């Protein structure tokens, strides 16, 4: 059988598997379609990507939000495909390419899968957001990921890069001759205190940083975020997002820079990004067990820092849900890197499979709290009125499915 014929067979098999899974009510068929495709013929991804304009988004935090915003910003030029179900491994990429004929494609890609996706899809642009500790038992060391990216980018010389100049790990990884630097800000710098190249201390002054031991320093960025606005050259444009908080503003700045690289006018890109109100349930407000809640994702110290800054705007009661399943990372000790003391001013209930770990963490931060069996029980313990539900990955999906928007 020729490789073209084999490809056609695999594509048909993958479609059939997805359809069967949907008919049997086993979900949306994303996982099975992608798995059949990439297991039987990983080369199918290469074939499906050929001739299309592909942009890849990766980083520890903000992948889904940035990819979603970028899709919206780019949509003025026509349909844009996106793996918008959080399926960011090779199978999810395969599914997105298979199920849409759109010429333009935005792919959010897991940090460890990025090298293979770069190699297989030859994207015209890759957007690198940030790198920080996440699921050490699965992803491993941050510096290893940085090296992996550096090598992968070296191997795809036609791919342009948009990268965050405020993250020293990215500046060490991205090829300077084809990177557009963006000053998106870094909400969590605890994993970038020492130089990624030589481990000497990094010197920070204002928004600038440089290494005391080698020549690594923050490159100048033609696009820079200033709180809720973006400065492009002499022009300052308010972001005006529907999504709240610094993290979303940083992601929007990255998406805007990427859209400009793709030839989209900045004003048009911003107008379109305003339409995005939530991303896969993140920031969604709705009703759960008859209570009005806002749902927030907190999956590692960096994302926790951005969630806590959102919470500082009011004193709503909080439900914290912590799991430690495979998809969360099996070690929840990262909660000790989160400054929970800020929650002393409001009622707090914790639940989830690792509620006991969180309860000890809060006790040492002097945050009065109650432990509940599950989210429903937790909500019933809180005073009336709107509240925030903050959950890590698997816990978040559980709540998100039940949320009535």
């Amino acid at each position, binding site marked *: 059988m020729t490789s073209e014929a084999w490809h056609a067979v695999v594509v048909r098999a993958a479609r059939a598997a997805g359809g069967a899974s949907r008919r049997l009510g086993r979900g949306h068929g994303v996982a099975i379609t992608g798995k059949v495709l990439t297991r039987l013929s990983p080369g199918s991804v290469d074939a499906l990507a050929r001739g299309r304009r592909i942009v890849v988004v990766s980083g520890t935090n903000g992948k889904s939000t940035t990819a979603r915003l970028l899709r919206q910003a780019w949509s003025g030029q026509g349909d844009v495909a996106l793996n918008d179900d959080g399926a960011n491994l090779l199978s999810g990429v395969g599914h997105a390419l298979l199920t849409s004929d759109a010429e333009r494609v935005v792919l959010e890609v897991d940090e460890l899968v990025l090298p293979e996706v770069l190699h297989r899809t030859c994207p015209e642009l890759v957007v690198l957001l940030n790198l920080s500790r996440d699921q050490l*038992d699965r992803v491993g060391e941050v510096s290893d990921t940085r090296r992996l990216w550096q090598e992968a980018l070296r191997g795809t010389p036609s791919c342009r890069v948009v990268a965050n100049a405020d993250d020293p790990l990215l500046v060490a990884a991205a090829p300077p001759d084809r990177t557009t630097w963006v000053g998106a800000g870094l909400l969590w710098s605890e994993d970038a205190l020492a130089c990624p190249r030589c481990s*000497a201390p990094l010197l920070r002054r204002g928004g600038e940083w440089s290494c005391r031991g080698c020549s690594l320093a923050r490159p100048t960025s033609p696009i820079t975020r200033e709180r809720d606005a973006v400065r492009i050259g002499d022009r300052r444009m308010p972001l005006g997002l529907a999504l709240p908080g610094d993290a979303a503003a940083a992601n929007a700045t990255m998406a805007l820079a990427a859209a400009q690289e793709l030839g989209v006018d900045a004003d048009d890109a911003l107008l379109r990004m305003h339409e995005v109100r939530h991303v896969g349930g993140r920031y969604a407000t709705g009703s759960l067990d008859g209570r009005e809640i806002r749902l927030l994702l907190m999956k590692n110290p960096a994302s926790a820092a951005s969630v806590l800054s959102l919470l500082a705007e009011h004193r709503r009661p909080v439900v914290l849900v912590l799991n430690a399943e495979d998809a969360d990372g099996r070690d929840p000790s990262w909660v*000790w890197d989160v400054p929970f003391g800020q929650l002393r001013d409001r009622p707090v209930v914790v639940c989830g499979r690792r509620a006991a770990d969180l309860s000890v*963490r809060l006790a040492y931060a002097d945050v009065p709290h109650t432990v509940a069996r599950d989210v429903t029980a937790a909500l019933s313990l809180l005073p009336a009125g709107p509240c925030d539900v903050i959950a890590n990955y698997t816990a978040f999906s559980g709540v998100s499915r039940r949320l009535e928007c």
Partner: protein
Amino acid sequence: MLTICHVYPELLGTYGDGGNVEVLRHRMARRGLGAEVIDVHQGDALPRTAGLLVVGGGEDDAQRRVAPLIGELLSPAIADGAVVLAVCAGMQLLGHTVQGSDGNVVEGAGILDVTTARSSRRAVGEVIASSTGLPLGRLTGFVNHGGATTLGSNARPLARVRRGPANHPLNRDEGAVQDRVIGTYLHGPVLARNPELADHLLHLATGEELEPLPDVEVAALRRERLRPQRIWRR
């Protein structure tokens, strides 16, 4: 006033190990005893008053950076009687030599009589161990390391592993104790999950007999973590 030094938090602070410092400070404060925490960064000297040194875990690059510095930094204080808690990479660095992920061997501080080679398989998972030399009962934690650590005759294991990975794939030792230095592979952070170890370190450092504290939340966590069927292994 006890001075607790957090050694190189920017390099050795992987995943919550800073929590150990917070636990120590908090347990002193709850007893009405004074403690100050000082972060010791690269280039800083240890304060003369340093009584308890906490060295956390870190990545390979950070470990290579710290290796030539840490012996000189800590040795005088340890000779003066400072107590040390060294976790994961911190414990490895206090030993004679450490083999990194690239196979290269770096010299450690030589303070703790341990040697770390590279293990063929990464040790990841929940651990339950019974303390051996010290009266600390059962210890619980999460380990994630690629080391194969063996103890010399001057160091004793902190505990014997009942479930989960140990110091070395070929033995059941957990951690290392030598004089006033305690090393462990346990994260969690280890002192949050094992308050008796925290109080033992504080007792060594202050000389005070410490009243037990009502650790309601910790007791619930320990009940859950020490329940055998909850243990996850890879």
